[in-house]
């Protein structure tokens, strides 16, 4: 992947992704953290485009930004008295230390391994993806649909108030 444009785009997107991911960690306000998270999702989607995965990039924006981030925003709004505080627990230091150690291991592995790569981007469009999903991966595909339905029902059941449950029991 040569060319000044791609290099420039990669560094910009990587910077956006990493800085905003770090922003999620350091921001004191939970809503700011969500906004940084959204920026991270957009940055990752840009990286997907660089990797010529158009469909996945669009799905990333639609689902992560359009649905998951909005859900998180909604959850933050629904729990107002818990505060917008995005503070750390008492186990913060070991957690972050663990993450740093893991990062060191990862980086070592990534830069130590001699990767055999092909420079030609394989043609991977929505049609290939659809074909793969409905032939080779049809069973996981169906299971995923069942999972989504179960999650839908479960989320509704969990989020109901006792009053609503009582009303349903009467009906």
């Amino acid at each position, binding site marked *: 992947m040569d060319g000044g444009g791609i290099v420039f785009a990669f560094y910009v997107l990587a910077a956006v992704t990493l800085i905003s991911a770090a922003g999620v960690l350091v921001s004191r306000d939970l809503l700011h953290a969500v906004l940084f998270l959204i920026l991270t999702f957009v940055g990752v989607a840009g990286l997907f485009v660089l990797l010529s995965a158009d469909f996945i990039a669009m799905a990333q924006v639609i689902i992560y930004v359009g649905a998951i981030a909005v859900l998180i925003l909604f959850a933050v709004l629904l729990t*107002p*008295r818990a505060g917008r505080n995005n503070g750390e627990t008492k186990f913060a230091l070991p957690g972050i230390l663990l993450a740093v150690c893991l990062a060191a291991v990862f980086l070592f592995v990534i830069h130590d391994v001699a990767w055999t790569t092909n420079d030609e981007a394989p043609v991977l469009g929505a049609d290939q993806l659809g074909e793969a999903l409905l032939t080779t991966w049809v069973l996981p595909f169906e299971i995923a649909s069942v999972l989504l339905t179960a999650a839908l029902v479960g989320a509704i059941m969990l989020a109901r*108030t*006792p*009053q609503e449950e009582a009303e349903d029991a009467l009906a």
Partner: protein
Amino acid sequence: MTQTIKSEPFILNIGPQHPSTHGVFRIKATVDGEKVIEAEMVMGYLHRSMEKLAEERTYTQNIPFTDRTDYLSSMSNNLGYCLAVEKLASIEVPARGNAIRVIMSELQRLASHCMAIGAFANDTGAWQTPVMWAFREREKILDIFEVTSGARLTCNYMRIGGVAFDLRPQFEPMVRKVLNDFPPFLQEMEDLLSGNEIFLSRTRGVGVLSPEMATNASLSGPMLRGSGVAWDLRKADPYCGYEQYDFDIPIGYQGDSFDRFIVRLEEMRQSLHIIQQALDGLPSGPHSTQVPLALRPPKGEAYARIESPRGELGYYLVSDEGPAPYRFHIRPPSFINLSALREMTVGGTVADAIVVLGSIDIVVGEIDR
């Protein structure tokens, strides 16, 4: 583990600066999410101390004050006050004067209901269109007022013993034009709003007021009739010769906002019918009896009430034989009707509260006086 629900009610001030409070009026609503759990009315932002001021003016000088209470139906306010003074001083009004008074107060009802349904539709979110259409028709009535009395909004037309001036020659064709133009307009409004599924779903079952509640809260006008109570002072306690005219009382079904809306629409039809009859049988003769300018009614008290566009408008006067009333009190329909607001809004959403407030058709000038 306790199963108590902790909600976070917070106070939402609807008003005094809010597009839908029709003036400076404030609802201090305690809301839980979108749901209103408590509503407190705060009024008095427009208080001008009219009742006290009136004790310093002569009986004739008080007529312009009544214009400025309910500024959307000044003719009716003039009429109510003049009736009270006439009752106090036992003054007879000539037949022509009564007929003109009936025409004027019915025209005023049309104009006021135009405003009411337009603003109500605006509160449900129909962005300006119904209100502009209603204003278009209301203009024609205001033109009639201008031709007759010289003013469009605060007419100051009624006088003790009759009306201020006789009718102009162009009056009758203008009223005939209104009689022609209004039925299509009312049909238009029905097509635009009554048959509109969104409007129906916003207003049906919203702000339901039971007949018991309505009578207990001493409501009047379309608010009371919307709840299915057939009560109209023009029938129950006729004044100005209303008993000679043929008209019906429209009443609603379940007392929701939509019922109040359709009652108002139908009242406009009945008003047109009354105007038609009064105009066809307009008697000739003097329009007013001669009344001394410095009127000193005998000692006593009088209460006169009329069916204003908003309900029972009463004027209570006490005379001590002086040139000014000893006590002057108004029974404003908007103020009394507003007392049911809390009952109707609590339990609904904020959007419902706005619709309910619109369906009451308040005029803040009358509430605060």
